[in-house]
């Protein structure tokens, strides 16, 4: 190959290359200088570290941007967490997860209704007082069919609430009245043992009518479209990019709030990114740790915390008569080979998860102590031979020559996939049942569950309020969330009893009975009660985690200089 042109070209291109390398290095140097300079001057939130004791600032990361801050319509955990910081209801949960007075100073619960007396110094962030009318308006709005609130059902204990929500009665038929600015009268549809628990839920938060109407349908859309009566108020909201909460000086109990600012400049669902931010000293908490990240955390010698998020996860069956899973022997066969302990300890591998034994989790209160201590869950002894016998009987009854093939509906998350593959292998090797894994993304999975297009499904249920009923009524035949359409008369009766009775003994007995029925009928196979592990900067104290209600809760948090 003739070299003349090549070497000449080469020298020319070399010049260019050197030029570009020099340019890049110069650029990089400039960047380094810039960042060093900005670190010195300390301007802007990006230079603040996770915890700034002087200014009382806490920096965090959230998984998504809160999709709905209108308290009448919020359903997801992020929105509820934010609402828990910027709003307050009649009652609230304190640092020990006990119900304490919020906007209401005192209250009285009777069989037919309740009365709440509001405190004088409860204020909105624009200085005006929080009145009983604000609560009445909010509750009316939440139940109005036009609002289409998915949590409207939580207001159903109120008189005529359900009828209004289904459109049979006009909205002013609601049994809620503001007697005057300070007193709220409530009538019940039927006697309710756990109304106090419900009132702390965000859907029961107050909304001021004139402000709501003023926003022209945009209530909750941006910073200026909300009024705050809670410990914090939002000062910055750049969607998906930056959320900033600052201490609300108008809050009546502002003395108990020790943080000044909660800054959230990072939104991502990627826990590895969050971990990197934590390592870089930019955020103070990493929630939702996965099993794979534990080793890194241990190596870094960070402090791990755990808490049970209160949810129960189980295998749900399709009880439609056309499906093989409606056959009791088949379900029994599956139950007798499923070892939740193996699932929790070998597959999920996260501390904090408890092997599932019942629909009702361990943290529920019973009459005097824990429900599961007073009413222990029926114990299942695993027996592969008996299981095969049940399978044989099932095949006889169903008229099958071979073990059936079942579709297992799961989420598209990696963890769900792992569990699905485990079950596939388990049932395949122990019983010869072929499991087809039906992996769907969110909306499709919901659609399939609703339309009963599955045989088995992994399902999780988180509590709406701290009473066994939130789990018990899941399998009531009228519940739209009972996707498998399990229907048992004795069970339904027991649920109705628990709903209407006020006697703790009667109610707890009913729940015990429900627990037995579910186990006998093999209505579900409990897998685990979920617990989470998270890491938190040691300088941050007083963070409250909850199974029910806004979680995590920083309203009582404070900064310690030298832990």
């Amino acid at each position: 190959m003739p070299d003349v042109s090549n070497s000449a070209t080469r020298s020319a291109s070399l010049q260019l290359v050197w030029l570009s390398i020099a340019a890049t290095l110069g650029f990089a140097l400039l960047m380094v200088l810039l960042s060093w300079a900005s670190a010195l001057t300390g301007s802007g939130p990006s230079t603040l570290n996770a915890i700034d004791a002087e200014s009382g600032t806490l920096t965090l990361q959230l998984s998504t941007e809160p999709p709905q801050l209108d308290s009448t319509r919020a359903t997801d955990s992020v929105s509820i967490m934010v609402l828990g910081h910027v709003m307050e209801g009649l009652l609230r949960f304190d640092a020990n997860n006990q119900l304490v007075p919020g906007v209401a100073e005192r209250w009285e619960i009777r069989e037919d209704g309740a009365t709440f007396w509001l405190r004088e110094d409860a204020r909105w962030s624009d200085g005006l007082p929080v009145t009983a009318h604000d609560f009445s308006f909010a509750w009316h709005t939440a139940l109005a069919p036009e609002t289409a609130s998915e949590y409207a059902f939580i207001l159903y204990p109120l008189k005529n609430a359900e009828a209004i929500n289904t459109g049979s009665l006009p909205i002013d038929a609601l049994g809620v009245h503001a007697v005057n600015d300070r007193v709220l009268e409530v009538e019940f549809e039927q006697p309710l043992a756990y109304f106090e628990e419900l009132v702390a839920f965000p859907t029961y938060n107050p909304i001021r009518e004139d402000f709501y109407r003023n926003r022209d349908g945009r209530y909750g859309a941006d910073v200026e479209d909300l009024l705050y009566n809670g410990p914090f108020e939002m000062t910055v909201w750049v969607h998906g990019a930056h959320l900033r909460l600052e201490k609300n000086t108008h809050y009546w109990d502002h003395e108990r709030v020790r943080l000044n600012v909660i800054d959230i400049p990072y939104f991502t669902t990627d826990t590895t990114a969050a971990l990197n931010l934590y390592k870089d000293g930019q955020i103070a908490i990493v929630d939702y740790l996965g099993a794979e990240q534990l080793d890194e955390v241990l190596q870094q010698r960070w402090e791990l915390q755990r808490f049970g998020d209160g949810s129960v996860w189980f295998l749900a069956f399709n009880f439609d008569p056309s499906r093989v899973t409606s056959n009791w022997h088949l379900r029994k066969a599956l139950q007798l080979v499923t070892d939740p302990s193996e699932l929790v300890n070998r597959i999920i591998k996260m501390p904090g998860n408890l092997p599932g034994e019942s629909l009702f989790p361990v943290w529920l209160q019973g009459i005097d102590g824990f429900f599961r201590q007073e009413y222990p869950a029926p114990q299942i002894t695993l027996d592969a031979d008996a299981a095969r016998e049940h399978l044989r009987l099932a095949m006889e009854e169903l008229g099958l020559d071979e073990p059936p093939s079942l579709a297992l509906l799961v989420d598209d998350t990696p963890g769900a996939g792992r569990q699905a593959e485990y079950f596939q292998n388990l049932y395949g090797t122990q019983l010869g049942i072929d499991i087809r894994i039906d992996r769907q993304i969110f909306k499709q999975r919901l659609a399939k569950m609703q339309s009963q297009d599955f045989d088995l499904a992994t399902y999780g249920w988180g509590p709406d309020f701290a009473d066994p009923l939130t789990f018990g009524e899941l399998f009531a035949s009228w519940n739209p969330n009972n996707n498998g359409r399990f229907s048992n008369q004795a069970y339904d009766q027991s649920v109705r009893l628990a709903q209407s009775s006020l006697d703790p003994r009667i109610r707890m007995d009913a729940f015990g009975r429900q627990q037995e029925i579910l186990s006998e009928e093999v209505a579900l196979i409990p897998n685990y009660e979920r617990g989470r592990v998270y890491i938190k900067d040691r300088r941050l104290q007083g963070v409250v985690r909850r199974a029910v209600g806004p979680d995590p809760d920083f309203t009582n948090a404070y900064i310690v200089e030298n832990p």
Partner: protein
Amino acid sequence: MTELSLTAADFERITVERRVQTIARPSLSYWRDAWVRLKANRRALASLYIVIALLFFTVVGPWVWTVDPTAQDLDQLSTPPGADRRAQIVEPYVPWNGVFTAINEPPAETVRATAEIRLAEPASTQAVRLVWAPVLGASGYRVYRNVYDPAPDDAVGLPLAEIYDPRQVSYEDLLDLTPTRYWYSVIATDRNGREAEEYTTLAVDTIRVITAAEAQTRGLVDLESPLSLGDEVRVSFHPLGTDYLGRDMLARLMYGARVSLFIGIIAPFFFVLTGILYGSAAGFIGGRVDQVLMRFADFVVALPFLLFMILFKIAFGIGPGESGVVPMLVALVVLSWPATARLVRGQILQIREEAYIGASQLLGAKTHYLILRHMIPNTVGVVLVTLTFAVPTVIFVEAFLSFIGMGVAPPTPSWGSMCNEGIQTMLNHPHELILPAALISLTVLAFNLLGDGLRDALDSRMRSRE
């Protein structure tokens, strides 16, 4: 100067010798010439061997290494290659009732350190059973476990359990036990639920154990030889380690190769072919036809990928848990050809103006002859680059599609989906990611080198240099 008068007789006829220029070597056609060049290129030859080796690995491999890629060896989760395989025979697991103390003192404001932590029985991967001396005034205990020594800075590690009953002075750990050294710390809590300042730590070495029944069912021992407690056996051998569900990596890579290589070779071939034909037609014909064709290509590119993938899945009627390899192939081809078409069209637009095209047309060449014989071979460079880049892209797209249920269904592996899964344990168990990624890299490298060699051999512009 004297004048010469020449007549016809002055000229003698020279003998006409028919000495034709002898060609030193036999005449070669375009293709045979290309093959010769390719063989001479050592790098290309090496890559060809690599490709053949990969195909061998794929096709013959499973006959040689007959381990089932779906078998889950739950005793060896995520083990790296070359891990220790010894295991001891023990009795099957029996639930433990724990140890409770009779002492019942009311919880106090402060509590002392826990003491006398010991193992109730030898620690193994089946269970670790701890017992400790009761602490007076404790309202409960917390048990922590770390794989590093907690000393100097109290890094006690994973919070395993919170015990609320002060009478319970034992704990059984079943969580993800591997044969390693653990440090267990037990801390007493006071009346307010706060942990004591001081605590004790116990270092525990666990050994891998297996029950006799398990050893026999898995075929680890001969059925005749009797097994007694304490005997040592070796658990299944996994030359490349296992994945997060204990499945053999080597077997999975072999089976995964079938899917990945099949898709990775066939799909790019088809969509590049489509792109070439489409793009050259558009580029050459030009005018209105070109505009329409290109606008359609733009249209295809702008469609949202995920949405249409789901649509295809429905349209092809892929049920839950079924493998839809052919539909995936079709979908990939249908949605990926525009980029190649555009590239080829660009090249054609350039080449169209070259002199030899005009000359050929003057000689009476038809359109299709021009396209096939002159233009397309001159786009070889661009086409080969696209092809070689298409391979890894397609493998990863296939991984994504399998993820949403469009490709291979679990437990069938593919290299792409193995990478997906390996990403999550990247830091702890790198072998789960490195192995499939290395194989993908190898494939890509081989195809790149091969592509280079082919281009050198086929491209006329390169060949004009001798």
